[in-house]
């Protein structure tokens, strides 16, 4: 069972070219999960206890505001990752995540991984160096979306 | 030219202007108006600014009386010949709408033939620059061609340089070597004011044949050469053109652009007086019945805020970007587009800039403090 999880974790694009000991560390916090279409993986404000490496299916990242219907600002699919807020206090999700189709994913226990990062700073640094570029590219994408480049000129 | 040069008196010059008028040309030349020397219709030498000269510097132009009675004792004023060859406003075509039918009516070719009297070497060069713009490439302008091919050019060799002149730096003068039908040099040695006249075309030869003249002597020719040498030696400005295209294009983020941006009003005077600036815009209008419409072309300037307007905003919104565009086009990218510099060293942009921005000084400042970099 554990061997299988290491293989799955090692094959996911997000953790590509990790060395075996590191894969083992992460796999130790991992489990297989399935979400049905329409099911929420998490809601805004929920404790960021588990983040997901998507293997099949897609999820929609949404923002909600009172009086407005949910707006999807990003979809995430196979070989991609959802959930970054687990890295930093207050460890709470900042958006909604809904399964669009049936989603099979690897759930990584965030508390487990945070403990291991605290104990092993090399692991912690590696995680940071993997997640920060993802954050930056999401931030950049959000800026582009904010510019409304396809919108009607003023 | 293997022709013998000739010499005209003042009366001979008068006869030249009359002969051109009789030959059906609209004769234009320098004349004094509104405290400047401008180009307008002239009927004879009496219309020329006899005994006047111009004092020019950055943002400064004044006419002053000369001690002599020279007819061409000044350089160039706010006008250039482009206003005749490339009019500030002209209708391109008319459209007529009747029901579901639309007819486009092009303009006939112009009938007026111009004779320009008093064209300086820098202006000959400027006309040649605009010839490449309007006649080069696959979309030659037939209206420009008609005006240009029928124009008769009487050039004048400068005997003095102006305060903002730098034709020597741009290799366009002061001596006129080509591009004219007739070329005059005003000389006044031995107490005798006279005009050396050289021919540059069959049309020029034909007109000269109608005028009272005598053959030029060696003394006449020497005096003429001395006059242009004198002009060449007293240029008001210099511009180092060595590698200037690469210099400017590898310094597009130079702090000097911020510096000039603080002074530049983006008034566009420079583009109006520059004899090579050619940018235009088009306008449409229709009559009240909606049956007839006109499509008109008018001068435009890259200094206007909406020159580069697209999708709700201008690409070059700041004055900094617009000044940079003008100067880099004039001295650098013009080479890529037309195979020559866009600047002929006439100095008008320096004289007529209300704050005296000097293109030669801006180029010098960038050259002296530039970093070698990647050119596009």
């Amino acid at each position: 069972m554990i061997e299988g999880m290491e293989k799955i974790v090692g094959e996911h694009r997000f953790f590509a070219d990790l060395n075996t000991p590191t894969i083992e560390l992460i796999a130790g916090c991992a489990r297989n999960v399935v979400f049905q279409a329409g099911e929420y993986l998490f809601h805004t404000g929920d404790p960021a206890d588990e983040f997901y490496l998507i293997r099949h299916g897609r999820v929609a990242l949404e923002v909600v505001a009172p009086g407005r219907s949910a707006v999807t600002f990003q979809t995430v699919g196979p070989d991609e990752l959802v959930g970054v807020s687990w890295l930093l206090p207050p460890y709470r999700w900042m958006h909604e995540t809904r399964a669009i189709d049936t989603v099979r994913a690897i759930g990584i226990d965030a508390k487990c991984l945070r403990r291991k990062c605290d104990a092993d700073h090399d692991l912690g640094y590696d995680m940071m160096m993997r997640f920060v570029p993802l954050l930056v590219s999401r931030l950049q994408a959000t800026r582009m979306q904010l510019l409304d480049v396809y919108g009607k000129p003023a | 030219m293997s022709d013998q040069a000739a010499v005209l008196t003042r009366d001979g010059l008068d006869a030249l202007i009359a002969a051109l008028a009789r030959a059906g040309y609209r004769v234009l030349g320098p004349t004094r108006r509104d405290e400047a020397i401008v180009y307008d219709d002239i009927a004879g030498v009496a219309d020329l600014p006899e005994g006047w000269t111009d004092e020019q510097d950055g943002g400064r132009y004044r006419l002053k009386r000369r001690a002599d009675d020279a007819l061409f004792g000044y350089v160039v004023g706010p006008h250039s010949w482009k206003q005749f060859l490339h009019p500030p406003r002209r209708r391109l075509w008319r459209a007529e709408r009747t029901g579901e039918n639309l007819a486009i009516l092009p303009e006939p070719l112009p009938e007026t033939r111009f004779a320009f009297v008093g064209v300086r070497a820098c202006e000959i060069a400027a006309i040649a620059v605009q010839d490449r713009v309007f006649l080069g490439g696959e979309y030659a302008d037939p209206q420009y061609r008609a005006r240009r091919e029928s124009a008769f050019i009487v050039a004048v060799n400068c005997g003095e340089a102006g305060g903002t002149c730098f034709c020597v730096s741009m290799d366009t003068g002061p001596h006129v070597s080509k591009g004219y039908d007739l070329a005059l040099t005003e000389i006044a040695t031995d107490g005798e004011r006279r005009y050396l006249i050289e021919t540059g075309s069959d049309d020029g030869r034909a007109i000269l044949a109608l005028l009272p003249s005598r053959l030029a002597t060696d003394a006449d020719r020497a005096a003429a050469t001395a006059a242009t040498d004198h002009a060449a030696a007293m240029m008001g400005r210099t511009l180092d053109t060595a590698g200037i295209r690469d210099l400017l294009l590898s310094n597009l983020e130079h702090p000097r652009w911020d510096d000039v941006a603080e002074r530049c009003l983006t008034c566009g005077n420079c583009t109006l007086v520059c004899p090579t600036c050619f940018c235009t815009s088009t306008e449409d209008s229709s009559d009240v019945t909606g049956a007839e419409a006109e499509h008109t072309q008018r001068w435009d300037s890259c200094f206007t805020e909406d020159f580069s307007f697209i999708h709700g905003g201008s690409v070059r919104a700041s004055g900094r970007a617009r000044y940079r565009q003008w100067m880099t086009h004039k001295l650098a990218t013009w080479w890529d587009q037309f195979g020559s510099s866009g600047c002929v060293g006439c100095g008008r942009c320096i004289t007529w800039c209300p704050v005296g921005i000097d293109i030669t000084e801006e180029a010098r400042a960038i050259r002296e403090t530039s970093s070698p970099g990647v050119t596009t």
Partner: protein
Amino acid sequence: MDTAVDPMVPTVAKVVAARQELADVWTLDIDTGASGFSFAPGQFNILYAFGVGEAAISISGDPAQPEKLVHTIRSVGKVSDALVRLKPGDPVGLRGPYGGGWPMQAAAGADVVIIAGGLGLAPLRPTLYRLLAERDRYGRIIILCGARGPSDILYREELSKWRTRLDVEVEVTVDHADQTWHGNVGVVTTLIGRSAFDPKKTVAMLCGPEIMMHFAAVDLVKAGVPPEAIYLSMERNMKCAIARCGHCQFSSDFVCHDGPVATWARLGRLIQLREI
């Protein structure tokens, strides 16, 4: 070439059909007469709306069908607004075609990645028609489209139709959507990483807002596509389309004539400078 012909004078053509594509976008089919209208994919025309003015509009039809000239127009100003109001039977002034087109020759034998944002698919559609008509000449054909929202996807039915072909990949993404949209949401560059193409044997053609093309080109370079194999269609203010009025200049280039298509190798440095 008849030297007396004034290149600024349009001919008159007739609108034969008008279709609404999106809230502010219409497509006109234009009859230019017996000999039809030949053009290369990526070229544009200057269209004249009587009494209002001229505008540069890309040609969006099939180059193999010169008898029908097709223009997709977005109403963004007074001229385009007048053009989208034209009805079958109305006359329209026309001059063109202008500009250099997309690099069809260079694409032969390569994977072709088409990235279109917003109305950017309009100048690229003629290319797609050509690519699909000579499918054997090319490797993978990948079409990536970005739009504001699900109701802003241009040529949606056609895209869906192409999507059903087994030899073409079509992916669409929108900037934001509500829960009724089950497709991708996110900037169009996110689709690049999800596509499989051989970066060393790819020709990419990009059209859309400049900033979108800029970041798409950067991501393609990161994915290993050489800058000289990435083509962008630039857009600037145009009045004449014959490299005469000066408005469309982008450094040395007159976009109307030296462009509008240019490689990232040529544009890259300039696009990253402010206000060139």
